[in-house]
């Protein structure tokens, strides 16, 4: 983002999005699998809401987010993406 556009809400949002993309790209593959597991659940939520059958989802345990696995480090990208919050809410519903 250039100095000239800093403070412009649209440019800031686009800059943030691009920064997030770069962060996602640089994540270790193990963390990317956690993101994919979340994407599968979000896609299935849309599928269910639109009356389509859900697809298989990777178990959380298989991507290192089982009940015995430690929660992601506070402030890490995995933490900021809200995966653990999603997971906690899912466990509470169950």
């Amino acid at each position, binding site marked *: 983002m250039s100095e000239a556009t800093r403070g412009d809400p649209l440019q800031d949002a686009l800059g943030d999005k691009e920064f997030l993309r770069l962060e996602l*790209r640089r*994540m270790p593959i193990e963390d990317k*699998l956690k993101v994919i597991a979340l*994407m599968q659940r979000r896609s299935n939520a849309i599928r269910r809401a639109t009356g389509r059958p859900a697809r298989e989802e990777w178990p959380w345990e*298989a991507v290192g987010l089982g009940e015995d696995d430690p929660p992601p480090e506070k402030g890490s990208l995995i933490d900021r993406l809200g995966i653990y919050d999603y997971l906690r809410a899912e466990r509470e519903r169950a």
Partner: protein
Amino acid sequence: MEAIIQVLNEMAGDGIVADYAIGGAIAVSFYTEPQETLDIDIFVAFPAEEQAVISMQPVYDYLEKKGHKASGEHISIHGMPVQFLPTDELTGDALANAEHTTVGDLPTRVFTKEHLAAIMVKLQRPKDRARLPALLDVDDFDSGVFEAILERFGLAERWAALRRRLYE
């Protein structure tokens, strides 16, 4: 992922496959932001004496003996659906030239981004057209290598047409 790589490395070490490499969306995800997928694609080459008959049965038999369950076209390894695929000319070249990398401390091989892009140009399924721009956008994507692969496998015209569709 590490647990899967360990199983794959043991399978190669036991001579069930001569070589393997990760392809598909998971391979793309090594280079780009995570790409949604249902499974992990593993391309395999068999030992020379078994090349004449391409069957995944030895792989399935070996893994089932180790306690991994087959279900349809997948085999579940530590809870993750893994699909084993034989190679054709292009994916065979991708396997022969796959990048060496590590997952955790374990060595493994992943198709190069240039080969993955060429495979997408060849297949052109909707998901390939959706994923290709992310791959082409990776900083160290080598368009010279990509174009040489396309040329070698007769995909240059197919790429020219797709590029027009994607970018013009």
